[in-house]
């Protein structure tokens, strides 16, 4: 029992609101997601109606961005007493969940591959390994640069933090550029998602990873934009950084399983 009391001594004062608190940011984000993902997807892929798609996406994306900006500004402007660094606990819990979704995807890939009569199946062009090596170097360096950015903020050097954060953003963007280049080359050679079992797994897994890179980059922008006007939050950057390292680690699995096996 004593140990529990001690652990509580470290977090003695949780924010106890004195009035009914509310925020529109979560609702805006959810509405944005609702219009720009399910409805826009259905407009394009189910009903093949481009007007519907553009209306839903046109409504959803601005609302989503509005919600995110409000969420970030509320978080960064709220009094220090509201922060207990609990996000540093919540994020790893989220990552447990993310790990399991990748386990699900990789299991599907392994099942297809191990049951196949021949691998790669017919119709698979040569997929070069030079580009993935370059992409690995890009992503590993970006993990290093975001770590430096974190250290700079820890030292109180906001300018240094911004520089290293921008560098990380650039590395991540170039990484996504490489993905797009590779996709367009493969699609040009006739290797599309519907080609065979390998293309099925290839585009699903690399695409899913790329979407995580995109989310990571958006998170960095959410750190960077307030930092331009001098507002920073160490917990926020620490979380964005842990997420980025996770995306980096997943990439090792993608490279080893999809490109080099």
């Amino acid at each position, binding site marked *: 029992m004593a140990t529990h009391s001690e652990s509580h001594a470290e977090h003695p004062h949780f924010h*106890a*609101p004195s009035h*009914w608190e509310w*925020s529109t940011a979560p*609702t805006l984000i959810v509405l944005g997601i609702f219009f720009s993902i399910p409805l826009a997807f*259905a407009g394009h892929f189910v009903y093949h109606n481009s007007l519907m798609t553009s209306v839903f996406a046109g409504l959803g994306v601005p609302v989503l961005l509005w919600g995110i900006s409000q969420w970030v500004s509320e978080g960064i402007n709220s009094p220090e007493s509201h922060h207990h660094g609990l996000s540093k606990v919540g994020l790893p819990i989220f990552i447990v969940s993310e790990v399991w979704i990748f386990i699900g995807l990789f299991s599907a890939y392994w099942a297809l591959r191990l049951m196949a009569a021949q691998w790669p199946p017919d119709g698979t062009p040569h997929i070069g390994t030079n580009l993935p090596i370059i992409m690995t170097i890009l992503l590993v360096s970006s993990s290093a640069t975001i770590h430096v950015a974190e250290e700079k903020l820890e030292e109180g050097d906001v300018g240094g933090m911004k520089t290293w954060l921008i560098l990380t953003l650039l590395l991540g963007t170039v990484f996504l550029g490489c993905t797009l280049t590779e996709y367009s080359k493969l699609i040009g050679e006739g290797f599309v998602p519907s080609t065979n079992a390998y293309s099925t797994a290839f585009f*699903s897994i690399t695409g899913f990873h790329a979407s995580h890179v995109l989310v990571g980059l958006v998170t960095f922008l959410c750190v960077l934009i307030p930092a331009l006007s001098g507002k920073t939050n160490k917990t926020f950057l620490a979380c964005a950084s842990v997420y980025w390292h996770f995306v980096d680690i997943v990439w090792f699995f993608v490279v080893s399983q999809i490109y080099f096996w």
Partner: protein
Amino acid sequence: MKEWIFTTDHKRVGISYLVGSMAAFAVAGTMALLIRMEQFNPGPGITDNPHTYNTWLYFHGAAMILAFLIPGLTGFAANYFLPLMIGAPDVAFPRVNSFSVMLFWLAIVLALLNFVIPDPADIMWTGYPPYSVMTEGNTAWYVFVVHMMGFSSILGAINFLTTVIYMRAPGMGWNQLNVFVWGTVTAFVMQLIFIPALAAAVTLLLFDKYLGTHFFDPAAGGDVLLYQNIFWFYSHPAVYVILLPALGILFEIVATMSKNPVFNYKACIYGGFWGTTLLAGEVWIHHLYVSGMPDWLRIGMMVSTILISIPVGLMTISLWGTLYRGAITFNTGMMYASGALFFLLLGGLTGIPNAMTVVDLHIGETSFVHSHFHYVMAMLATFALIGGVYYWFPKMTGKYANEGIGKLGFWLNFIGVNVTMFPLMLIGPLGMPRRYYDYPMVPELAPMHHLATYGSLIVLLGMAITLINWITSAIAGEKAPLNPWGSKSLEWTHTDSPPGPGNFKGGTPVITEDWTPYNYGK
């Protein structure tokens, strides 16, 4: 109004979950009535279109599980009462909590749009390929409902696990937590690990149907059973995600109403709740006995499925042990809890033959299974939830719910669900298949179907009375004292009814070493 809609307070988020899940329950319950009416006699009944019947089946299952039971238990009950029970002013991430409930609401909106669109989803709640990939129905709708509900639950898991780990009242040790807190924690641990598998399964379905991939297409090197494996890897644990918080509520009601400490607390928590959690991910093959599996896997998972009896047995023993020699008050909440105990016994015992591969190969696709899981999951959890609402009604509203009407509703519901589900259990082994639109091969079973349909109408009456009772009592009920049942748990002893912002006016309670939420007779 904005302080309700956009609220970040855990109690108001909880009420929002309750309203949404009851709305989903009403619509999904209507689907059940339609299904029962269609099954009244063999041959076409209220619709001559089996496709329409399929959309009812789809909506009933998907909405009952994803939009009623899971949000009702881990959304409403956990949100409202867990922070109060552990002495926390709110959850760890209040805005994330608001995010969760909004995802839940929009998922309900999306699900309801199924009745408006020209090509409604018709793939049951399981969405098995190849049908789900080949159907004209809108499979994307189903996938996105699952995504939104799933994301909502994952965020809930992050929130509640962090809250329980870091925000317990000073001095509150692990063995001093309410059983309901453990039920919620174990449910969220499972949601965290297993929902991503479901999300992956349905996402691959989406890719297969709309982007042309071949995960589940054997003709192009895919595997159609792959879906069933990934799907049930989540969806069997989902049963425990519903069962464990429901049992948690039963423990709260039973301990308070019997004025007894929870019997065998540690065996119940570490053996029962955590044992179930540990085994949850190793039993899914029992859903694929009929689909076809290598024998070594079937027999292995038959053993692990039967092993589940041990943790479930521990929890059941604790429930009955808590009642033993108690000074039991039979109010409406306790009556629902007793009804749920009966369902636990009947549903649990009918699970054992289903676990046996040799038996299940014959009854697995009959209405015996349909009845089994309605007893052990659907009816048990719904009764626990309704009992919980009656039990905590004075806490949420400051008023008593009307006992007479409450008990009338209970008897109608209890008799109604048994009259509906017991005949279906009996006719399963006689050859009544599950899910079918029609049963021309066994027309002699029609009288049992008549009985079941009449039963469902009794439930309609009982549920309507219950809902009306809640609304009228919340508005004009008799005023209740702060702790009407004489509970020892923090939500009753230390907060107002209903609690205000920040929950504990006198500051966070400090817990002593000899305190437990069940220290009756001390």
